């Protein structure tokens, strides 16, 4: 075994921690959502409460789940009525999202908060009819990077396959422009959320993005005035309002998918590291007890007997207070050490 000398690490001067943020660019083009796979990558469920979007036909083992689409409205919305299709499910979905993400007001009458087009949560500017996109953890990782989310949706009047371009005749881009790591968000029980502004619009907020939860809330009012928001085969067209009332949740999800032209964000993974500065003093670690260090009682790496001793450092061992080896760090190439030099080896441990 090589010589083992222990150097004590001083927690104040030799150990520090860092946090590195690794991001990934996540672009999602509209072709993945509608068109490329003829909806073979869209999964609907018998419960009919949401629709899942995959990046490849979901029967393939290569497919990854990207996000779920659903919609709902508050019970105080004018569109809420017992005659609406899946009324209870739509109300429950809205309330469940708002309870989990925003929490409660404390009022005894309608205690569940509503999504609002500002950061104040004061009950003003409620968005009562919303579409929800819940992104997969695979894509969101620890959180969506603040200020990086954008979604471009078609606000064109006509319904047809997106490849014809009709829903994309006019476009609206929503961006969380005001959000940054230090400002422009509000912290609620569902984590931080930011506002989705319409690009080029006069300070218009049409959605919210919950960064840690990875959930995007889009207000249905983006599509106000669109005459063919949804169209079923062999029947008439629906406006956005009519769709919310009369179509099933999966039908509304189909309509949204046809309207998304582009979607992108950056995710964030936090990598925590501990850095140990291992100091190698000039008068130590100049000898090795490695069996090959000597040859015929002479140090192999020395040419002249009168030269100073010399060693090559290949490994740093990290020990606990009981002198038990916990980890080793290797250098990419051996470092020459003799009494004339001192080294500081920066050992980083990621976790």
């Amino acid at each position: 075994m090589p010589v083992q000398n222990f150097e004590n690490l001083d927690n104040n001067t030799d150990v520090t921690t860092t946090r590195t943020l690794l991001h990934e660019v996540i672009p999602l083009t509209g072709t993945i959502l509608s068109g490329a796979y003829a909806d073979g990558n869209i999964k609907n469920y018998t419960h009919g409460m949401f629709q899942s979007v995959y990046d490849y036909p979901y029967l393939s083992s290569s497919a990854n789940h990207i996000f779920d689409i659903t919609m709902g409205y508050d019970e105080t919305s004018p569109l809420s009525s017992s005659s609406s299709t899946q009324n209870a499910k739509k109300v429950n979905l809205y309330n469940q999202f708002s309870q989990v993400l925003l929490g409660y007001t404390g009022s005894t009458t309608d205690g569940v908060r509503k999504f609002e087009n500002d950061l104040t949560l004061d009950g003003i500017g409620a968005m009562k009819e919303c579409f929800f996109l819940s992104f997969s953890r695979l894509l969101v990782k620890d959180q969506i990077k603040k200020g990086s989310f954008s979604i471009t949706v078609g606000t064109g009047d006509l319904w047809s396959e997106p490849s014809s371009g009709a829903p994309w005749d006019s476009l609206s881009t929503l961006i969380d422009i005001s959000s940054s790591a230090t400002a422009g968000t509000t912290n609620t029980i569902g984590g931080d959320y930011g506002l989705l502004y319409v690009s080029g619009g006069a300070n218009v907020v049409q959605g919210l993005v919950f960064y840690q939860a990875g959930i995007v809330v889009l207000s249905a009012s983006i599509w106000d005035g669109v005459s063919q928001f949804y169209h079923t085969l062999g029947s008439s067209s629906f406006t956005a309002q009519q769709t919310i009332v009369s179509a099933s949740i999966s039908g509304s999800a189909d309509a949204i998918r046809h309207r998304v032209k582009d979607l992108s964000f950056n995710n964030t993974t936090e990598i925590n590291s501990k850095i140990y500065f291992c100091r190698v003093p000039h008068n130590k670690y100049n000898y090795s007890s490695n069996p090959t260090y000597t040859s015929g009682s002479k140090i192999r790496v020395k040419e002249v007997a009168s030269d100073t001793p010399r060693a090559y450092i290949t490994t740093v061992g990290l020990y606990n207070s009981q002198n038990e080896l916990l980890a080793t760090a290797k250098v990419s190439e051996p470092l020459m050490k003799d009494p004339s030099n001192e080294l500081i080896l920066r050992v980083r441990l990621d976790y």
Partner: protein
Amino acid sequence: MSYKKFTENDIFLNTMKAYPKVNFFVYAGNVYYNNIPTQIGNRNTTVRNAPEGYISLYEYNIDRPDVPLGSTGDADGTRIPRFSLIAEAGSVKTEHLKTGPIDRGRIAPWISKDSARSSFKTVGAFVVGKSAYNSEFQYGDTLQGSYPLSASITRELVTDFRATTPGYPTTSGERHYVALRNRLDFYAVRSLHYKVDSPYGNKDRQTINLISIPSIFYGTKIKPGSVSLKWMITGSVIGELRDTRENGELVQVSGSTGIYSPDVGKVAGVVLYDEGIVLLTGSWDMNGKQISIGPGGTYARPKWIYFGVGAHDGHTYDPTFASASFSMDFKGHTETQVVSMFAHAKRGETNYSNNPTFLTYGQDHMEYTSSHSYEQRSDLLIKNTVSSSYSDYSASFHRQVYVSRVAIYDKLKNLVGVATLSNPVLKKEDQDLSFKIKLDI
């Protein structure tokens, strides 16, 4: 809901060892991994963006094409977001382009250069003088990588190698061999066939066939005794090597009949189990056929040093070596730490549910309420869920619950995990139940 504490005998840690089977098949310059065929995508040439024989790390970017101008192909910039943005200062709005990582329609990792000195492996070293990282990037700059990261086996043929020649090693195969010399001598205690200079020959002077297997395919190490290499001509096995002695020696266990059969029992090379390297030196003819498998496409007879020709070694396709195919089988070795937790539902406990349907429907739950107190009724009826043996007849009442999930809390009573049963389990009042919960870590 009541909490129950795990006692010292309820939680234990153990290690699960698994030996995943791996097969590589090399034919006509292509490598196939576990017989997975090429999957052609709708939008991209291959679905996984990695050729056959390669593993794609994370399996990101499924069927995504690489587009030079952003995912929508917009010409107004290659940055995310690709459009004009509004910056707000009071009521004044200005439009500007925000910079960020380059979008090529694919998921890609990026990192900002900061004092932690983190970077991607491809960005360059920290060594002064050759440091792309130090000189190319400012603090705050974006360092961008790309996906998929992929891996496959590589074959390298080290020929005419002389360790004593000045200026060696020159090729990457020679460098890899030199890096392994110490390990080969280290393993000489297992078998002399490992040793660089042994009675069986001097590896510094032999032609060496070096096959490198990335650890993503096998985990911790290759399982000794599981390696099998088959040399095939027109589909018939002309020779097979196995590590039957489990000491790393690759022994020929079968061969063609006639003049080539005495080769059975010879050692054609060694496996470095921990490093994932197969090193072959066997240079005897196994078949009389001349095919273009030699260095630079020259004609040669099948030998073990030509095993795996075409496995990412730069050997281009030639119709004559299309008659040769190679199969490499082995088992990996992975260790997964598993926490097992026993959650006990003892008799007389865990026999009530807060689920609203646990009580008979239509009862008034409140006895009395005022501004100071709230009293629940004491005579609430529990819904009888006991199944009767007869139709249209209610069985007599027993206390029972259906357990559908077990929640695990930390010492601060934060919910840290939920174990859900495939089917709810009936628990009667006089029954003891234990749930074994396993978690891979």
